[in-house]
């Protein structure tokens, strides 16, 4: 479980089969009884804790393996916590004891104290889990009390105890004398619990076995003369029993073998009554000898499995508490479930195999299997005799030198060697029902799918029979809803039931016994067993509950210790292979319980995995199994938003702006003027006046930052805005057919009221009524306000004003203005990202001169600018156009042609006027933004980090390095875990999870959720202007401008020009070409 290095993990995962929860079926004789143990191995790496989650759900107990040298690792904590959460009983195996002897060269005494230490650590962990649970329960009780003040007051006041005192927790802890700890060395094949030695020594020394059991572990020593066991007096240096009777023996054996002390070995072997084969005895490698001796003396399998049989519960012993926990999702109380559902509890507890018992199966995950590996698809020999026959045949053929055939057959038995070993045993002993139903069926299936999904499941109650109809209950299914829809005591066949959300009906097609990689077909599976179910891939995505009765609630969702957090964008190497990739990703999503797949608006396929190692495995799976194409992986595209702010009051060194001397000749704000071309007038308050290329229309636009709350309201109500927009547009078309629903109407007024509430002040007076449009895409967080006096148009639905001829024309051209606004908000001037929280005010826009075709005075235009209101500059273009009045084909884009006399040819060398208006409006908006202080907005994650106190500092270091900000930090009650809440820019999050895990050695685990957009305070165009700034930041000042860094990265990605020198220092470039 505890692997020493990541490299080894990666090396191991090459073989995908090594990583899965392999379910191996073993059959154990323990005493007079026979047991069937479903053993599910799960990987220990944090990234794969999802595999642990899926396995833990369907188990009744678990073996936690701890390295004797490394002790308790973060993974151990995680695994213990998961076992605790699922309410299953753990037993402990302390492995690699041989390393204490061989590598660390501990004396038995040292080893004993080391082991004691490890045990204490683990028990401390269990203790914290226990206390936190008790405290939680207590908190719940308290809140209950507050809810019902009628409960006895006196008790509440005087109950100062934490509740810990009353709750017995002794049974939880690991202790060798309880029999739930074994010490092993798997590599040398030995292991023991103290019971084994207690038995031996009770005969040898003649002390009662019970006494020995209590005293073999702990600070007791034996007084040989008095045959008495006494408490150790530290000062006397007496050895504890465990050292004296157990460890020293093992140590002396190792000592003898390693020193190749032939005589001593023989002595030990004979005294233990073992028989060592001559080959092993002569072997030069001491490891082989130790293995040979120990595996006979203290066989590991016996020690561990005996403990499993004794200490772990059988499916029948499922606790009521666990059943209730499984059935009640979230904070729901068990009592609140419908009575039909409550009745199922009994079925759980019974675990009965009668026909009447309801069948309840939980599918904890789906795993992909090569279709060729399915038993029905491969006709292969199964009985011992057949194999023997084949072997015989092979030998004959070999004798006949038919090499080709021989190889083929010989390979097959070795591949499923493990299956061969176990199976005959099961069959011959016949202790379990599986035996008789194991007859293989060589039914080749017609469909030739490459990957098949098998559901990894467990029967909790009833007998799963092949072909039985079952209800598939998704995680969101609610039995209450079903009972509401279907009358009680329904008797209709399942197919005719009314559709209930998250419920489907299917038949169990194939049932399999899982034997490592091998699958065996079964006809039926009795309760308490683990099985594989085929043919569910269309019904079950990742996990589900199958039940014969629809009143069963779905089991609570699996607890995933690690949530998916590492995001990457995945693309096929060859663009034409996109469909394969999508298909492969779908399969991967089903096969892996802890992976998320998103398609983003940008068209990216984003894969979200639990960690780097998990990611690597997912990619390998995708490449080799599911998609079978070359893929490339990259950092996902990070979105930004552009906005403007109020002009800052202080400069970068916190000096008041305007008081400082402008220095730095180079850094004069030369650009500000040059950026804006001629023909555009800028008022000091940021109003932009611009005419269309043909000088026929002039617009004046101003940009204002919206208050933060308003932006938020707009974000939240985008759907509502969309419907308003649809309604108004249809209204404008003159079709009143569509009637707004009463409820929407109310919502709209509420929305409007909210906006009015937040947009107060002189600047914003009456502005809500003048809102013309929202953008981008007509529903975004930006506003276009129309303040021109002679033309009213508002987005709010209301009585349609009588459209006079004049306004019709405005409205039609108005569409172009709105389009221009939409385009401008879709891509801002900084890096072509959408805008957010900007209000554009169309101060003046007047087309009155449009009708006066004759009047071609430019003065009008100038006047209007002086008067701070831009009239429409109706400059007639050419006298030729005048004569050509009443032209039919006015190629205007959005204009409704009323065939008026006033409308003449609007097209000229610059194209149609409406098109010009769009472009002009867009330009006007852009320049209006330019003159305001522009800022970039970054997407932010909220980041919850659980960390222990000792790594807190390193968590903070990682956060601050990545521009994160800690919002709060609090201690979790009853534990030593801290919960840190922080915000982190999405742009900095790539590799964050990995880094934080590395730096804290896995003790902190972050979770990232997108939360909001935040303005980056620094100005991307900032250059030092005052003396202080110059001193503080230097000439270039490009070192710490976060906003500029982001902006340039985006511009570079998009191929926009970046203000960056190709060569920094002209003198220092390499000038010789390669061939000189």
């Amino acid at each position, binding site marked *: 479980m505890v692997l020493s290095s990541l490299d080894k993990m990666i090396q191991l995962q090459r073989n995908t089969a090594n990583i899965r929860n392999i379910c191996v079926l073993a059959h154990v004789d323990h005493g007079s009884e026979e047991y069937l143990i479903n053993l599910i191995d799960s990987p220990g790496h944090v990234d794969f804790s999802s595999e642990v989650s899926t396995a833990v759900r369907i188990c009744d107990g678990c073996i936690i393996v701890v390295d004797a040298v490394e002790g308790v690792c973060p993974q151990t904590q995680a695994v213990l916590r998961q076992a605790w959460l699922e309410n299953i009983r753990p037993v402990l195996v302390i492995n690699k004891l041989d390393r204490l002897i061989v590598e660390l060269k501990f004396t038995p005494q040292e080893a004993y104290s080391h082991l004691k230490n490890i045990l204490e650590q683990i028990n401390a962990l269990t203790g914290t889990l226990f206390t936190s649970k008790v405290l939680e329960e207590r908190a719940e009780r308290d809140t209950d009390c507050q809810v019902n003040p009628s409960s006895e007051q006196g008790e509440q006041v005087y109950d100062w105890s934490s509740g810990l005192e009353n709750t017995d927790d002794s049974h939880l802890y690991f202790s060798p004398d309880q029999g739930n700890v074994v010490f092993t060395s798997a590599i040398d094949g030995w292991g023991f619990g103290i019971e084994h030695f207690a038995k031996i020594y009770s005969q040898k020394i003649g002390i009662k076995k019970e006494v020995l059991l209590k005293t073999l572990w702990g600070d007791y020593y034996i007084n040989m003369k008095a045959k008495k066991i006494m408490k150790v007096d530290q000062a006397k240096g007496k050895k504890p029993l465990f050292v004296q009777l157990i460890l020293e023996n093992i140590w002396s054996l190792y000592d003898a073998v390693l020193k190749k002390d032939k005589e001593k070995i023989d002595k030990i072997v004979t005294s233990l009554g073992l028989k060592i084969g001559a080959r092993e005895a002569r072997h030069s490698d001491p490891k082989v000898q130790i293995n040979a001796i120990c595996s006979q003396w203290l066989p590991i399998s016996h020690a561990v499995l005996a403990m499993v049989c004794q200490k772990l519960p059988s499916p029948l012993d499922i606790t009521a508490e666990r059943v209730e926990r499984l059935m009640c999702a979230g904070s729901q109380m068990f009592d609140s479930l419908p009575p039909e559902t409550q009745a199922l509890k009994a079925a759980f507890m019974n675990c009965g195999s009668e026909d009447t018992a309801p069948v309840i199966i939980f599918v904890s995950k789906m795993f992909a299997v090569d279709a060729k590996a399915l038993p029905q698809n491969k006709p292969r020999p199964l009985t011992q005799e057949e194999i023997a026959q084949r072997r015989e045949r092979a030998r004959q053929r070999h004798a006949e030198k038919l090499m080709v055939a021989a190889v083929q057959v010989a390979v097959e038995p070795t591949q499923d060697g493990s299956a061969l070993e176990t199976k005959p045993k099961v069959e011959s002993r016949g202790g379990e029902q599986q035996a008789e139903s194991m007859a293989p069926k060589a039914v080749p299936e017609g469909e030739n799918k490459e990957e098949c999904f098998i559901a990894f499941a467990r029967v909790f109650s009833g007998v799963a029979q092949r072909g039985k109809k079952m209800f598939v209950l998704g995680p969101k299914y609610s039995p209450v809803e079903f009972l509401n829809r279907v009358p009680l005591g329904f008797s209709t066949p399942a197919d005719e039931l009314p559709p209930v959300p998250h419920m489907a009906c299917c038949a169990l097609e194939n049932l399999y016994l899982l034997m490592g990689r091998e699958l065996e077909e079964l006809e039926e599976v009795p309760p308490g067993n683990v099985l594989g179910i085929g043919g569910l891939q269309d019904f079950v995505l990742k996990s589900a509950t199958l039940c014969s009765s629809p009143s069963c609630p779905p089991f609570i969702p699996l607890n995933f210790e690690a949530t998916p957090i590492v995001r990457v964008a995945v693309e096929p190497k060859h*663009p034409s292979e996109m469909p394969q990739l999508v298909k492969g990703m779908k399969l991967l999503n089903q096969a892996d319980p802890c992976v998320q797949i998103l398609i983003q608006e940008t068209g990216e396929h984003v894969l979200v995995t639990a960690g780097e190692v998990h990611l690597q495995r997912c990619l390998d799976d995708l490449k080799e199994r599911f998609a079978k194409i070359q893929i490339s992986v990259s950092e996902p595209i990070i979105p930004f938003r552009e906005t403007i702010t109020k002009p800052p009051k202080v400069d970068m060194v916190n000096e008041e702006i305007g008081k400082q001397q402008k220095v730095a000749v180079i850094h004069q704000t030369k650009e500000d003027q040059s950026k804006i071309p001629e023909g555009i007038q800028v008022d000091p308050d940021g109003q932009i006046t611009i005419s269309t290329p043909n000088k026929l229309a002039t617009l004046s636009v101003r940009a204002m930052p919206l208050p933060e709350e308003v932006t938020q309201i707009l974000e939240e109500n985008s759907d509502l805005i969309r419907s308003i927009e649809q309604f108004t547009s249809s209204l404008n078309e003159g079709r009143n057919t569509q009637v707004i629903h009463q409820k929407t109407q109310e919502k709209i007024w509420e929305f409007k009221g909210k906006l009015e509430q937040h947009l107060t002040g002189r600047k914003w007076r009456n502005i809500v009524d003048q809102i013309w449009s929202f953008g981008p895409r007509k529903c975004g967080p930006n506003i276009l306000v129309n303040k021109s006096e002679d033309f009213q148009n508002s987005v709010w639905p209301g009585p349609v004003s009588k459209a006079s001829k004049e306004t019709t024309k405005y409205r039609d051209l108005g569409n172009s203005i709105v389009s221009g606004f939409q385009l401008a908000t879709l891509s801002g001037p900084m890096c072509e990202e959408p805008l957010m929280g900007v209000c554009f005010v169309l101060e003046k826009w007047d087309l009155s001169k449009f009708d006066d075709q004759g009047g071609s005075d430019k003065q009008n235009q100038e006047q209007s600018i002086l008067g701070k209101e831009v009239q429409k500059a109706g400059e007639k273009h050419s006298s030729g156009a005048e004569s050509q009045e009443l032209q039919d084909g006015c190629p205007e884009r959005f204009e409704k042609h009323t*065939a008026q006399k006033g409308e003449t040819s609007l097209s000229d060398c610059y194209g149609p006027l409406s098109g010009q208006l769009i472009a002009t409006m867009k330009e006007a908006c852009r320049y209006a933004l330019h003159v305001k202080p522009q800022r970039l907005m970054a997407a932010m994650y909220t980041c919850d980090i659980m960390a222990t106190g000792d790594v807190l500092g390193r968590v903070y270091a990682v956060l601050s390095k990545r521009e994160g900000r800690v919002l709060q930090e609090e201690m979790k009650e009853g534990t030593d875990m801290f919960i840190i809440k922080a915000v982190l820019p999405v742009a900095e999050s790539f590799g964050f999870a990995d880094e934080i895990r590395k730096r804290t050695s896995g003790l902190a685990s972050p979770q990232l959720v997108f939360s909001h957009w935040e303005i980056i305070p620094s100005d991307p165009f900032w250059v030092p202007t005052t003396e202080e700034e110059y001193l503080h930041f230097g000439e270039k000042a490009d070192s710490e401008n976060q906003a500029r860094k982001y902006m340039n990265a985006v511009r570079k990605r998009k*191929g926009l020009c970046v203000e960056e020198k190709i060569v920094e220092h002209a003198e220092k470039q390499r000038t010789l070409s390669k061939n000189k």
Partner: protein
Amino acid sequence: MSIFTPTNQIRLTNVAVVRMKRAGKRFEIACYKNKVVGWRSGVEKDLDEVLQTHSVFVNVSKGQVAKKEDLVSAFGTDDQTEICKQILTKGEVQVSDKERHTQLEQMFRDIATIVADKCVNPETKRPYTVILIERAMKDIHYSVKANKSTKQQALEVIKQLKANMKIERAHMRLRFVLPVGEGKKLKEKLKPLIKVIETEDYGQQLEIVCLIDPGCFREIDEMIKKETKGKGTLEVLNLKDVEEGDETLE
């Protein structure tokens, strides 16, 4: 001993020459490589980082400095720095390797961005990412032409990409309102230009909502104007019909 042995042959390295013809004379200045374009775009503000020397030459490689009277007659001044600035902004430049490289790369990116912006995968109605388009462009060995606008080239690229992958320009959603009389007739004419007709409503007027290829917009627009004598209207509902929002794959 030959005069052109490597030891006495002096090569100009790190020199980019900017030339200008004025008053029938040719003037040259010696600049550093990869710097002139930066100066012109305003990124480089330090003149000394651009100019090797402030003197004006007749021939840089021979080291012939221009005569003062020539300078006065051509530029009206003998301030060498001023003249250098003039020549820098107006003269003809040798574009150096790195400058050309970055320019082409930038254009390549720009083209890919435009293509990605305009196109969708017709099956999913989702756009392709820029990186994917870039790779596809490399696959078809598209070479950027420096003298053509990126938009023009983007349209060309779309055409070529269609042969290799499933890509299509995002459709434009339009609404026509046509008078009933001409409507039917016009509809037949419009049909070959329309990709998908979403709704059709014969009320008092014929109303059609449809998807078209953006390339046909002008044609349709003109046709409607002409045929209905300005009575029909045309409204753009959506510039590009693309799936919006994120989607979780299940």
